[in-house]
């Protein structure tokens, strides 16, 4: 079990709130909590790298397209194990060069700072401002000394414009730019619970919601010490949630949560699925993208809507595939779903992802629902078992072929919960097309789901999706998935209180809006405190 049932009494956690009005960094404020997760640094993801460059130098094109992709942990690419490997260091080196050339042309320092006695002062004023914004914090005395030495060294061997380029390249490839810190003020003792610096809080909040560094308002709030209270952080979170950047971030969360980031490369046997083609893939992807965007933009990021909507956004091809009315001219638009479908789970993109090359897969669909929507763990099959899915057969149904699992006692334990869910999706084939027969035999799409309040019997994926859209188990799971995504790590004992608050906030509105869970996350004192490292 990932959730550890150890609970720290709330009274112990919430130490007396500090009323200190000190400027940040001067004088120590006592921590608000007695325990906290470990201090750390987080490497920017590719998207975060691009967004960071574009924040420092508006108009900067995307440069991370050629970077090695992040691997995923618990299904998410935003985790805190990301490193700068040899390969990535080379790729960043190149990207930083291109970023520097672009920035140099934008900044036009050579025009603003003509050669003369004031050249260095004028130049470093501009360059240091770039560095400070790139580092997402004011420069320290040490920073200034290093940067000045770097500038002077570069200028020694290069003309001014080349030296500007070298300096900017250094900034855009530096560790201070590539990692955001959650360390607290320098000089905290080892193994202490400490507040993160106001600038670290601003970054953590901003990256969690927008995948980008703090904007001017957040930085101003950090400087003024106005991110200390939960309400102050909530105000900024609500403000940012309304931006397109936040919608993009949440759309990315939904894609990784539901495991549908590989849609572009989906491959199916089109001898079995004649409808499958490159054009189908494009249409299906566009449908899911448009649907998610709609839920985020117009439905407040409601998970109830995401899972239970009775409509989708289909072009002519997808409308025909679903057997529903099309938009008048066949371009993508809102269309009603037939009764056997509901929400994103019954979209072709999801159903085809959780299927095999040439058939559906009750096991994959069952595992998907259990692990991603209900946050349950499925242990890997025991090593004694030979794992061979039954071969497609012309005289049988997928359900009949897969049912053998439950007969083997070594497999039955897990498959008792996996299979009845997957079997309930058998009214959709491996591409997600609705079917009532398979190989001439009537399809049996009856299934059941064990949930915390009992058993839910159902027939067909649509019925299950509608149940899940209002399920308390799903409402408890989604905040956990969002926590893993935003915090970039697995939950731990110390997160119990925070997770409980996220769940309460998420469930307060029956529409189950993702933004409420995120706001609750950044309100928490556990979001702003870390246990310092002990060397």
């Amino acid at each position, binding site marked *: 079990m990932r959730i550890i049932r150890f609970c720290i009494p709330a009274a112990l956690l919430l130490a007396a709130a500090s009323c200190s009005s000190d400027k940040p960094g001067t004088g120590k404020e006592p921590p608000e909590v007695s325990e906290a997760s470990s201090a750390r*640094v987080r490497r920017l993801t590719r998207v975060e790298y691009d967004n960071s460059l574009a924040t420092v130098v508006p108009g900067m094109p995307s440069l991370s397209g050629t970077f090695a992709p992040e691997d995923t942990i618990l299904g998410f690419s935003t985790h805190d194990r990301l490193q700068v490997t*040899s390969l*990535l260091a080379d790729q960043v080196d190149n990207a930083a060069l291109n970023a520097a050339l672009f920035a140099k042309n934008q900044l036009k320092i050579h025009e603003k700072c003509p050669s003369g006695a004031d050249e260095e002062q004028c130049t470093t004023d501009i360059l240091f401002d770039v560095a400070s914004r790139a580092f997402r914090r004011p420069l320290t005395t040490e920073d200034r000394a290093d940067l000045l030495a770097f500038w002077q060294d570069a200028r020694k061997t290069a003309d001014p414009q*080349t030296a500007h380029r070298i300096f900017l390249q250094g900034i855009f490839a530096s560790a201070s730019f590539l990692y955001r810190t959650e360390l607290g003020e320098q000089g905290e003792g*080892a193994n202490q619970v400490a507040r993160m610096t106001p600038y670290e809080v601003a970054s953590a909040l901003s990256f969690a919601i927008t995948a980008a560094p703090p904007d001017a308002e957040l930085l101003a709030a950090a400087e003024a010490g106005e991110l200390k209270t939960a309400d102050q952080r909530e105000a900024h979170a609500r403000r940012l949630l309304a931006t397109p950047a936040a919608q993009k971030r949440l759309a990315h969360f939904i894609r990784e949560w539901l495991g549908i980031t590989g849609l572009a490369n989906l*491959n199916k046997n089109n001898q079995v699925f004649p409808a499958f083609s490159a054009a189908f893939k494009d249409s299906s992807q566009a449908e899911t993208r448009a649907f998610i965007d709609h839920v985020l933009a117009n439905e407040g990021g409601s998970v109830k809507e995401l899972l239970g909507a009775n409509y989708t956004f289909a072009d002519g091809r997808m409308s025909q595939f679903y057997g529903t009315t099309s938009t008048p001219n066949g371009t993508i638009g809102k269309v009603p779903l037939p009764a056997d479908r509901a929400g994103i789970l019954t979209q072709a993109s999801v159903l085809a992802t959780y299927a095999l090359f040439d058939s559906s897969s009750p096991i994959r669909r069952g595992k998907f629902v259990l692990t991603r929507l209900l946050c349950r763990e499925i242990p890997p099959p025991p090593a004694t078992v030979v794992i061979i899915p039954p071969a497609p057969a012309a005289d049988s149904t997928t359900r009949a072929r897969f049912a053998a699992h439950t007969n083997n006692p070594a497999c039955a334990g897990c498959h008792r919960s996996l299979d009845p869910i997957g079997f309930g999706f058998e009214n959709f084939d491996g591409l997600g097309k609705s079917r009532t027969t398979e190989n001439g035999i009537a399809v049996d799409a009856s299934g059941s789901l064990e949930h915390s309040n009992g058993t839910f019997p159902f027939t067909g994926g649509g019925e299950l999706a509608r149940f899940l859209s209002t399920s308390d188990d799903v409402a408890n799971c989604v905040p956990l998935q969002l926590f893993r995504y935003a915090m970039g790590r697995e939950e731990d004992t110390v997160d119990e209180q925070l997770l409980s608050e996220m769940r309460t906030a998420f469930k307060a509105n029956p529409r189950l809006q993702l933004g409420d869970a995120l706001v609750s996350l950044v309100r928490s004192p556990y979001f702003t405190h870390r246990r310092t*490292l002990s060397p």
Partner: protein
Amino acid sequence: MLRQLSRRNLLKLLGGSAAALPLANLLGTSDAHAQTTAPPLRFVAIFTPHGCLPEFWNPQSTGATDADFTLDFANSMLLPLQPHKSKLLVVDGLDYRVLYEHGLTGHEGAPVTFLTGSKVNTASGDDLPESASLDQVLGNAIGGGTKFRSLQLNAWEQFGGQHVYNSISFTANGSRVPFERDPAAVYQRLFGNAPPPAADPAEADKLIARRKSLLGFLTKDATRLRDRLAGEERQKLEAHLEALADIERRIGSLSTAPNPAPTPVPSTEACSAGVVPPQYGLGELGNLARLPELTKLHMDMITRAFACDFTRVATITISAPSMPWIQINEDVHNDLAHRLDVTTEPLRTQIRTKMVTAQRWYAEQVAYLMTQLASVQEGSGTALDNTIILWGNELGDASGHMNVRVPTVLAGGAGGRFRMGRFIHARPAGSNPLSGWGGPGSPLPGAVAHNKLLVSIAQAFGVNVNTFGHPDYTGPLAGLT
């Protein structure tokens, strides 16, 4: 070449594995002494999926000794390697023993343990090893003099990202080492930053000075952050600093001075930047139909990188879910590998024939790399003579999906470290460790851990270890020398 031959003869004379280890060490020392003349030894690991049909994978014996074998028979999966027979060492009966005795077997275990010899650790929710892979260890040990300690390539990756099935290279803390899937990007990395030839020496000096001031700043900045960290967080910045040191080491080679490598300069033709790989868009890199040409381009990059002595270590994963270019439109995993035990004809023959075709295609790719390396002259031999290729697989007998008797081929001249041109049995032919196995975590009697092969290869490169990966399995693999 003479020296190698004499050593090979010496090894032959001494025979027996008991004598092999100390002798190898002795020769290792003389190697170091003779480094000014000897071409460097290289390592390539190739990983392909889906297992095999052992009866069609293993060579057929044609005589009394282990050198008497052929790959030319009906349904031979290794047939494309027949022309390179004298530079092959086919090892039968090697097992991913650690997967059985320490937890998890199956598809996920093999890529994790192939080069690490580690058990699979699932604590993170992901399947990861607990120690570094052989390419990383070798890269750190012997790559210090080259531009790149190692290269990690992937011929084709459907989903773009890294996951448990496509990654074979790991850092010491068990993180995946990212791979490159775009040959054009590999080319750019290898050759792209070289200054125009015959640049003005004063200008070249300036370029170097500028790179140095940049690297100086980056190192200072990363060091300062590192010094605030401890434990795993500190490790991240240590890895970052190592990567910066890699870049810094390459600054010198920007100069017009000849590469200070102590090796004979390979033919300029083989090393020259030559033809630039085409720029595939991200979409085409994910297009399965491109897999064969991408594979060849990657193999060419390995050859060039070796010819230029840019690196001495490379890994490549080649994994095709289906192979439309040879009329395998089925899913190789579900429709072929899983169904090799079908008993009804003609289906059985159809499926098994296609499996032979699929595995033969992978053998062709290995043969292609060998041919390319053999075209690079080095002293009196070729780059192939001085390379150890380790070709490993995800599974053993595909129909059982087992991680025992995993198809393993050593290829290349191995710089004389191993006695090539043979087909050997790591354990008695016909023995089956699974018959006496009590289940996960219990001993796998009679199995031969592939860790021993990793030890042997590490020792061949002068890395003085007696275990690799899991500490349970000690010593090198008998019979290689």
